[in-house]
């Protein structure tokens, strides 16, 4: 279980391997305090939606031999929970905190790559954690290299440094002494 967590946070982080939230991580890094509500809502929605979606797909879809349809049912469940939580946030805090793409992808990954309910929750929360952990790195790189605006040159610097971060986190898993590499 510990190995699962480390795998999905650092070793094979979803944000880096699938590129699932890379753009949003860069956008969030420009204004982290205003994105707090979005991140909180993402966390709540992903945890709830992946639990329910795993239960529906394990108890109903698999018995009916329809387990290939899990993205469809998880989308319906995700929409319901996302609208509910967003309406609560709008009523109480009067801020719009809508986020669809990465939350839904994390729910899909959690439901599709797990073999038990615990594992589904662990995988979804590890995906969110890896997304949260990437944002301070990007903020630090932006402050160190005095990147302030959303120009193309600044985006270029940020993307190159994300590529370097990926090389650093995954470099130990490559067989460098293979004759084809050098």
């Amino acid at each position, binding site marked *: 279980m510990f190995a699962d967590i480390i795998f999905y946070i650092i070793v094979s982080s979803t944000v880096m391997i*699938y590129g699932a939230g890379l753009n949003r991580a860069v956008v969030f890094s420009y204004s982290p305090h205003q994105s707090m509500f979005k991140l909180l809502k993402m966390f709540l929605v992903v945890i709830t939606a992946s639990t329910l979606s795993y239960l529906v797909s394990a108890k109903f879809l698999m018995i009916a031999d329809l387990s290939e349809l899990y993205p469809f049912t998880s989308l319906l469940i995700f929409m319901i929970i996302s609208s509910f939580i967003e309406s609560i946030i709008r009523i109480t805090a009067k801020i719009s905190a809508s986020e669809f793409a990465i939350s839904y992808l994390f729910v899909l990954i959690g439901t599709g790559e797990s073999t038990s309910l615990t594992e589904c929750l662990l995988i979804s929360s590890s995906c969110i954690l890896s997304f949260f952990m990437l944002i301070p790195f990007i903020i630090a790189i932006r402050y160190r290299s005095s990147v302030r605006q959303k120009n193309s040159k600044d985006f270029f610097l940020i993307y190159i440094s*994300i590529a370097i971060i990926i090389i650093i986190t995954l470099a130990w898993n490559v067989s460098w002494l293979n004759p084809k590499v050098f």
Partner: protein
Amino acid sequence: MKTNSRLIFLALSTAILIPFPGRLGYGIILLLALNLMTLIAAASRVLIVKISLKELQHVIVPVMLITSALVFRNLLVMISPVIALTLSFGFFLTAVSSFFVSSFFIPDMENFSSELKTGIKSTLVFSAYALFIFAFRDIAGYGTLTVPSTEGLRSVLILQESRGFTSLGLFFNTIPGAIVIIAVTQVIYSIILDNYRKIDIEESADVR
């Protein structure tokens, strides 16, 4: 328009270029799926306006896109299971990013042909660019060009193996290599757009 097109380019390229191996065969299948999904998104938006359910469009369009991604994936499982194994998660990434793109471009239209033109034009331009990048990564990393077939990918050898060339090219076949390609393309694209805009402004000043 400039920030819009750059955001669309970034969203589409991170969804299509990063997660998959840099082989031309996978690129062909994914870009076909992307164009079909854009068609389906445009068609469903027109349908929604016709039956006057405009408020529900943020719910219905993703449902149609994910359903189409499911159908494509299962068709691919029937036709070529090996490719479906590699691209297992890819169709949903493509569907989500094409929903993102279509929500940008199309505010409120009732005309099917104009809706189609604006949606398909940007994805066709992006498909041409992405096919070129896939071919470049294939040749630089493996020296072959691949096409999809029922047993997997069929490869055609283009370059003879030479150690110096393939080791540098192998970097472009990896995930950081894809990110470097995206960053460089984005800078070149902005420079071209800036110069184009300067020429436009100068021409309109000359006319006056």
